[in-house]
Every structure is written in structure tokens, then in C-alpha cells.
């Protein structure tokens, strides 16, 4: 806009000239992206004579469907998806669902017998089974066919009765990636600090920091994240959000998702990334504390890919590429000129 809003509003009050008859069609065309260049110039000229039009144009540009409308539609979507799911089974069936059907058909008698024997054992144990990693990563198949990948220094618990009416997991510490086997009547929920993540058929990553911050990244399908204060958000593939332990908000994160799963893929991607951000990625991946000392150095931009490389080799490349010195002491790195 060539003028300040205030200036235009002031002038608007003084103007009394008649507007041309086709003015609303013209404004509509411009607001709809339908106008030709000549029409844009025509409106520009009219705006000089009739600055009061600016106010209307600004308002039209800012008009949006209210958030309530969007929320109602999202809620409908979740409901109708539940309705639709039983009908999409006749897909070119995957082998997994075939096996499951077979088990359902033949397995009941055996399952009832075994359940009777096991129920006594359940009382003797806790209601949770704990999986923990220290320096090494791990992955395992859960009883329902879902797969869990655990980063180093991670503790995850799952309910003893996992898969029987519900699938509940508790991320006590660290980071995990979930590939969830779709099961209609068996909701999959991950509890992480103050956030509950309910799965609607999908794969996603959860990182729980020691301070209670929870970061979620969805790679396929969708999940619903809900925190203890009742705030919830449906996340689709590609979405990345964070929830700090202190405020009740769940907020979208706009930083690059290229390295969120690096701990699992062992592939680091730095696409024109400033060293200050590279440091954070390295810290997470190599489980280090990284310190960038110099502000000149931290603004240098890195373009590099590393596939399953040891830290020393990565540092060597970065040092040479950006002409920076790196000193390494225990779990601390320093980048300087």
C-alpha cells in the first residue's frame, strides 16, 4: 500500500465524489485474483480519487471464516473418519490385516484359556512394563504389530493390558518414534509429561525434555495432542508442535523438520542452516552439549549431508567448510574463529 492507513482513513471522510458504477465488480476481480494488469491500474487511479475504498479493501483482505467454523468442520472430520474406516477394509489387503483376521477367527478359544492363566500373574506384577535405553538405541515390536524406536537415554512404559481395549504408553524420558498399527477399537495413546497424544492411525515422533517440554512431529496420518489443561490440537502429516512444561499452550514449530528423525535414520541434512541451529541438531544427535561461542561464527551457514558418520569426521568437515576452529572437551563442543 502506497499510503499509511491512518492517512487514508482521514482522507476518506472528506471525499464525496460518486464512485463509478462498475467499481464493485472491479474490486471483486482484484480481490479474487481475476483482474488484468489494466484493471489493476484502473483501480489504482480510482483509489487516488476515492481513498475511502482502501478501508473496504483492507477489510475484505482481512475477512476470514471464524475459527469456530473451522473447528466445527475439523470435529466433523474426525467423526466421519471414524464412520468411514470400517468400509475401507476392502483395500488391496495388506498381509498384516489378513494375518490379524486369521488370528481373530482361530485364536479366541486359546486366548480365553491363556488369559485365565495369565490374569493371576498380572496381579503379581506392576501394571506397566518398562523399556529403557542408555547409550544404545533400540527398537521393538509391540504385541499389536506397532513398532517403537527408542533413542538413547529413553524410558518408555506400556500398560500390561496393552492392546486389550486400549493401547497406553508412557514416555517418561527421552525420545521415541511410533509406527502405529491401525486398530479401530483400540485407541493408541502416548502420555508425555502434560501432553497426551491420541493416534488416529499414523507414524510420529515424540521428544520429551528433562524440563517437561514435549516436541511432536507427525510423519504420516494424524494424531490428536491434548494437554492436561484440556487444550487439544489435531496434527496432520508434516506438522511439528511443541508444548513447554510451563504454559498450557501447544504451539506449532516452524523450524526445519529435516533432522527431527536423524536419531533414527542416522542421516543429517543441513540445507543452508546457520551454525547456531546446526549446533542444536548435533547436540541432539550425538547427545552432547554444544556451545557456539562467537556470534560471527554462529551466523555462518552450512550446506552438507552426513550419512551415519562419526562425530569427529563430521566436525572435521564442518571445520574445513566454514573455516572455524572446534574444540571438544568431554560432552562439550566449542566453535570459534
Amino acid at each position, binding site marked *: 500500500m502506497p499510503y499509511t492507513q491512518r492517512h487514508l482513513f482521514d482522507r476518506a471522510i472528506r471525499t464525496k465524489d460518486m464512485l463509478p458504477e462498475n467499481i464493485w465488480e472491479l*474490486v471483486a476481480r482484484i*480481490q479474487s485474483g481475476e483482474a488484468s494488469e489494466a484493471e489493476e491500474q484502473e483501480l489504482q487511479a480510482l483509489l487516488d480519487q476515492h481513498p475511502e475504498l482502501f478501508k*473496504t479493501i483492507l477489510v475484505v483482505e482481512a475477512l476470514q*471464516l471464524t475459527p469456530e467454523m*473451522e473447528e*466445527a468442520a475439523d470435529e466433523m472430520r474426525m467423526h*466421519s473418519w471414524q464412520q468411514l474406516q470400517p468400509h475401507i477394509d476392502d483395500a488391496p489387503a*495388506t498381509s498384516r490385516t489378513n494375518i490379524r483376521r486369521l488370528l481373530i477367527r482361530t485364536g479366541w478359544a486359546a486366548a480365553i484359556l491363556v488369559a485365565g492363566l495369565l490374569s493371576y500373574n498380572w496381579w503379581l506384577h506392576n501394571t506397566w512394563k518398562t523399556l529403557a535405553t542408555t547409550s544404545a538405541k533400540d527398537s521393538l515390536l509391540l504385541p499389536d504389530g506397532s513398532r517403537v524406536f527408542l533413542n538413547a537415554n529413553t524410558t518408555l512404559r506400556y500398560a500390561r493390558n496393552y492392546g486389550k481395549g486400549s493401547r497406553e504408553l508412557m514416555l517418561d524420558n527421552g525420545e521415541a518414534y511410533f509406527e502405529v498399527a*491401525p486398530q479401530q477399537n483400540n485407541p493408541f495413546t502416548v502420555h508425555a509429561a502434560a501432553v497426551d497424544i491420541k493416534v488416529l492411525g499414523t507414524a510420529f515422533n515424540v521428544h520429551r525434555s528433562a524440563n517437561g517440554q514435549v516436541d511432536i512431529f507427525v510423519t504420516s*496420518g494424524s494424531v490428536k495432542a491434548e494437554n492436561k489443561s484440556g487444550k487439544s490440537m489435531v496434527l496432520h502429516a508434516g506438522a511439528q508442535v511443541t508444548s513447554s512444561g510451563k504454559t498450557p499452550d501447544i504451539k506449532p514449530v516452524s523450524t526445519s523438520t529435516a533432522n527431527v528423525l536423524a536419531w533414527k535414520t542416522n542421516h543429517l541434512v543441513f540445507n543452508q542452516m546457520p551454525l547456531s541451529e546446526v549446533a542444536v541438531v548435533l547436540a541432539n544427535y550425538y547427545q552432547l552439549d554444544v556451545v557456539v561461542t562467537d556470534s560471527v561464527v554462529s551466523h555462518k551457514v552450512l550446506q552438507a549431508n552426513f550419512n551415519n558418520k562419526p562425530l569427529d569426521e563430521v566436525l572435521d568437515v564442518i571445520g574445513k567448510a566454514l573455516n572455524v576452529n572446534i574444540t571438544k572437551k568431554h560432552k562439550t563442543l566449542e566453535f570459534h574463529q
Partner: protein
Amino acid sequence: MPKPNRDFPDDQGKELWEKMKVEGDQSAFASFYHHYASRLLHFASTLLGAREQAEEVVNDVMLWTWKNRHTLPAVEKVSVYLYTATRNTAYNYLKKNARSTTDPLDDIQPELLQFSPSPEQLHLSTEAVRKIEKAVNALPGRCRLVFKLIREDGLKYREVAEILDISVKTVEAQMAIAIKKLHEQLHDMTVPKNS
């Protein structure tokens, strides 16, 4: 809730459409469904006025798309294809239930098409916002639906005309009416203090 997309990300939808056609697995369909269903459900609700029927219609369209995924045509814009299919299915539904003898666009539910100026884009006084909402609420449902499809979904006049089965001239006229009414309501507005 994240901010609605002013420009409906149809490029991403087209990728999902192709992925569903080629790979044809359930997760590809799920992504496709969740990408489009909210908008289609909203659209169907405005045409039919009832939530259950809207869900039935949209799921009909989606299920048909899923079942015929391997033979789906190449489309220019997936949203136009889906909106048109939803409109056809909704009209058939209305015809079958003999609810509508006249133009279904006359019966659009305006309560699902409420607009408000986004505070992030424009700082306005409460009084100004009230006036704007009053102007929008005075618009007929058909007019608001056209406005929604153009401004929220980033569709072209001819695309909206195709979806609603009306002429391009009518689309343009509805947009012009919406803007004219807003202007009339705004004309005696006092200068906003915080802009």
C-alpha cells in the same frame, strides 16, 4: 487450532491424490482424506443444513474415490473435482428426499458461513468489528458461500461457477454484492484508534 490456510494447499493435495492412485494403500488414503475432508464437510453442511447428512455425503464421495483410486482421472485441481462431486452427491440427496423443489443454493445455511476480520491482519475497534460482522451477516447464504470459496480456498471464478453450477457472471455479481454491502456499512465508520 492452526490458522486456516488462505491459499488452500492444493499442490500438496495433488501429490496425495497421485500417491493414492499409484500406491493405493490405506495410509495414503488417510492422508488424502484428512487433507480435504474438513472443507468438504463444511461445504456439504452449508448445502444440506444437517451434520449427519453432510458426513454421509462426503463419506460417499470419499469412499467412491478410494474404491476407484486406480482409475481416477488426471485433474487440474483436486479441490474442484471433490467440491463438484460433493455438490452433485448433495443435490442427489436433496432430490431423493424431496426436500428441495427450488434452487438448493437458496437454502444455504448462513450460520455456518460467519466471517470476521482477522485481528492479525487489521487492527480495528470493537465497534468496527461489530459493523463488519453486521454487514456480513446481512448477506444471503449463496453470496457468502461464493465469497468463502474464492477468498478461503483461492478458487477462480470459473472454478466456483463449475462447482456451484452457476454462471461466471453470477459468481462475479455475488462477489461484487458482498464487497458493496461491506463498503456501505463501513462508510460512516470512525477512524480506528489503534491502526
